[in-house]
């Protein structure tokens, strides 16, 4: 079954993220927020998103916008598993002059649609893209925007949210990585996002909650949401920041983290134990 493959790929994506973080040494990487996105990216790229590996800029592709730019490792690792980003590309992650930078650099041939990193931009880009697709008569491509929950602090997100429902963008899908942690601490202590579902609903969106680490739930809920989509659709994915590595899970100190050899080995051991179960 396809989802079994997805689950295996998710494990490998997680492994790639840990490898990339270790490789950059003391520079550190946004490991926490990258690990929380793994299952969702795996499910999307191996089952749901429409794209052509031989031509990532094909007009009939789905667009994927990583608004939460600091989860770039997840994007690169996923594209790597898919076969678009090469081994050599991944090795250049965060190297001087590399296009595979900490935050995405617009590289459409490799599946990176926009240069993001400044939070709160992606949903507007998504609205513009969705409007353009409709304008061009492209009724088959969808626009997916992946955003953080802390990112919903930004006012620009709500400008975009309003316009999405005003224009009844039934080709726009937002996934919010609700890991409840931002840089300075837990979202509920900094700027509560507890009404996020009601907020998007009140802005005219359909909202579906998903378990962000259960690939079956992700797949079933997204596919059924898409089948019934009538306007802009938001999935609030309940996730764990740092998922998969015990000493990183739910620790806001790991928004950016470094993995020395000891911690790296510990993380790999945990992943391997998990894989063997």
């Amino acid at each position, binding site marked *: 079954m396809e989802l079994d493959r997805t689950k295996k790929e998710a494990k490998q994506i997680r492994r790639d993220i840990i490898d990339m973080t270790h490789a950059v040494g003391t*520079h550190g990487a946004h490991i926490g927020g990258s690990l929380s996105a793994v299952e969702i990216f795996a499910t999307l790229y191996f089952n749901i998103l429409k794209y052509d590996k031989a031509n990532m800029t094909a007009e009939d592709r789905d667009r994927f916008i990583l608004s939460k730019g600091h989860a770039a490792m997840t994007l690169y690792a996923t594209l790597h598993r898919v076969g678009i980003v090469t081994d050599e590309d991944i090795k250049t992650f965060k190297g001087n002059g*590399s296009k595979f*930078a900490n935050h995405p650099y617009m590289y459409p041939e490799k599946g990176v649609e926009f240069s993001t990193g400044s939070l709160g931009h992606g949903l507007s880009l998504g609205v513009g893209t969705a409007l353009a697709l409709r304008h061009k008569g492209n009724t088959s491509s969808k626009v997916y925007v992946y955003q953080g929950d802390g990112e919903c602090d930004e006012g620009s997100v709500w400008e975009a949210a309003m316009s999405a429902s005003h224009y009844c963008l039934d080709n726009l899908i937002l996934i919010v990585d609700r890991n409840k942690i931002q840089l300075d601490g837990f*979202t509920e202590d900094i700027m509560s996002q507890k009404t996020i579902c009601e907020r998007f609903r009140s802005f005219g969106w359909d909202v579906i909650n998903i378990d962000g680490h259960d690939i079956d739930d992700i797949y079933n809920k997204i596919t059924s949401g898409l089948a019934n989509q009538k306007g802009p659709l938001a999935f609030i994915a309940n996730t764990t920041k740092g998922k998969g590595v015990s000493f990183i899970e739910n620790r806001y100190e790991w928004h950016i983290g470094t993995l020395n050899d000891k911690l790296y080995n510990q993380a790999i051991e945990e992943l391997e134990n998990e894989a063997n179960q």
Partner: protein
Amino acid sequence: MASKYNSLLLSKFGQSGAAFSFALITLAEANPSIVVLSSDMSTPAGLDKFKKTYPDRFFNVGIAEQNLIGVAAGLASEGWIPIVVAQACFLSMRSFEQVRQFCGYMGYPIIICGIGAGFGLQFMGNTHYSIEDIGVLRTIPNMTVISPADALECCMALEKAITYRKPVYIRFTDKMGCPVVYKDGCDYEIGVANELREGGEVQLIATGSLVDIALKVAEALGQEGVSTSVIDMHTIKPFDGCKVNKNAKIIATIEEHTIINGLGAAVTEYLSTGQNKTTLLRFGVSDKFSEVGDYSYLLEQHGLTAENVFSTIMKELL
């Protein structure tokens, strides 16, 4: 002037770490009107100690820079002295209009602290580099724009900004382990540049973390028999034109910033007010985005190294 600050120790914490973990604590104790606000950047900025010591005087608005400035203005309107701390790029750009309206137009005395200015945020990339902040904030009436040379000068600048009672932007450059320019303290007044070295043939006017480079270049030029002065132009606005040596053969401005509208432009404006035969060399970022990398890589990319500045000046002298 003997300093209450230990410059060597402070430099280990970097400019923002020094200002917020040391100077701010003392200043806040002395002045209960001081409040601090951040847009989810308090830990990277070194504000944990302040948060712990004065929890009622710290506000985190989350990742929302426009709201940050507005909230600070509201507090200022009620007599508080707000110190706002976030990334320089987002304070100067994402909330530019709010800074313009509340500080420039309405004149609220907010102290805006932009951390990670210049290329300080290294691998975060171009979305996070702040190489336009001096230029854009300089454009706003009533704004004072400061870029301290080292961690000690940052502490002095913050101290002075609090009693200054006007809107101020302080840009924090470099990172932890930043160079020391003022080993034993410094005389510091907002708007009064410091002459660190005398000389007549060449004048190096630098700001922020690159003052250290200017000193190295001056040393090297001195060894070639070229009499070189160095000015730490810590305040770019209001600009201390009297320190500019119009009789120098060459004036070189050095900034971790675009050469459009920054320190170089301020010096150009000053020189253009009269006739002079000085050659002006502007070192900075030449109207392009950067290839992402570490701090040294970025500075080198834009010729902001002592070697490049030295050799360019030597070529010009020949």
